[in-house]
């Protein structure tokens, strides 16, 4: 079971085994329980909503300006789906290091 967002390695889609689907997850399965933070460049985000719709942890939402933003207080599972699937290269998922202070650029989170 994928620790990040609860999906099983062999993902069932439309009743069929679909290991390739959401393969992004398998890549991060090894990186156990590192919590991460999502940053979004609002200037580049076009608000298509793909990241919001498919985020397994429901970390993202569309803000009042129509751009994606991270919802405060929900832990990102660092699966990387949003980063791989953002057509506008507007999302960065950064791993939080335990020692590092929480000084990631929040300005972008709108």
């Amino acid at each position, binding site marked *: 079971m994928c620790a990040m967002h609860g999906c099983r390695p062999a993902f069932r889609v439309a009743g069929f085994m*679909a290991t390739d*689907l959401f393969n992004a997850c398998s890549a991060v399965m090894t990186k156990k329980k590192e919590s991460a933070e999502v940053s979004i460049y609002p200037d580049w985000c076009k608000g298509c909503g793909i990241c919001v719709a498919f985020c397994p942890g429901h970390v993202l939402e569309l803000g009042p300006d129509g751009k994606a933003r991270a919802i405060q207080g929900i832990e990102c599972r660092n699966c990387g789906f949003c980063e791989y699937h953002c057509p506008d290269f507007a999302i960065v998922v950064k791993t939080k290091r335990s020692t590092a202070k929480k000084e990631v650029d929040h300005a972008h989170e709108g």
Partner: protein
Amino acid sequence: MAEVTQLIHHYLRHNKRFPHVLCPGCGHGIVLGSLVRSVHQLGLTKDEVVIVAGIGCSGRIAVYVDFNTVHTTHGRALTFATGIKMANPKLKVIVVMGDGDALSIGGNHFLHAARRNIGLTALILNNNIYGMTGGQTSSTTPESSYSTTSPFGQQEQSFDIVKLAKAAGAPYVARSTVLHVKLLDRVITTALERPGFNLVEALTPCHTQYGRKNKFKTTVDMYKWYKKNAIPIDAYQKLPEAEQALRTPIGIISEETRPSLEERYAMMKSRLEGAKS
């Protein structure tokens, strides 16, 4: 994860204005990301990569990446790429085309490039429609779906790109959707590594022109459609025929090895050289 976007930024042209011109939710950007990651993974230098693009939305993505980029004419990207590859076989030539571009106006070039097995990676961004000109029917618009030039439903059968490429002689044929990014990364990387004409069809949604007219409320609905209907080839083959008709197989559809045209040509030249001395 942060390295993914940073990596892409390393390959973007920062004197070009971002965000790019493509519509919100257009999958072309995802394909571009996939392409960049593949180039990076193979350790290719920016100088040895040539992106040749046709006309259409797909053609526009060439300008954003810091490789040698050639934005050619409608449907003819493969012909330019053939010239470039034969003139300098050391270059890694990647041809980015749309479905209308590669298969309607450029259908003949597509067949012949596959037949000659010239060493190119052909990347067809299939969005089932002419996006840039306002949503007209292309040769891959599914039967019965709507477009500005098929207001009562498309009456013609559409092309199956991978079958066509295979029949024309392409040694490596693969298909993925932009939702299945890891698969897309993998097939593009393989295509870049292999000799000869290698085709990757990337299904990428066009909500603005296609989705809207065909009962997809949002872009996200189109991605959900891919999630539901794109089936790995192995699983697909086990389906009953009636089910198969409704689904699209993804993955490596066919793979074989034949020497590429430029290799054969070099061999012929060395034979001539040998005969002379």
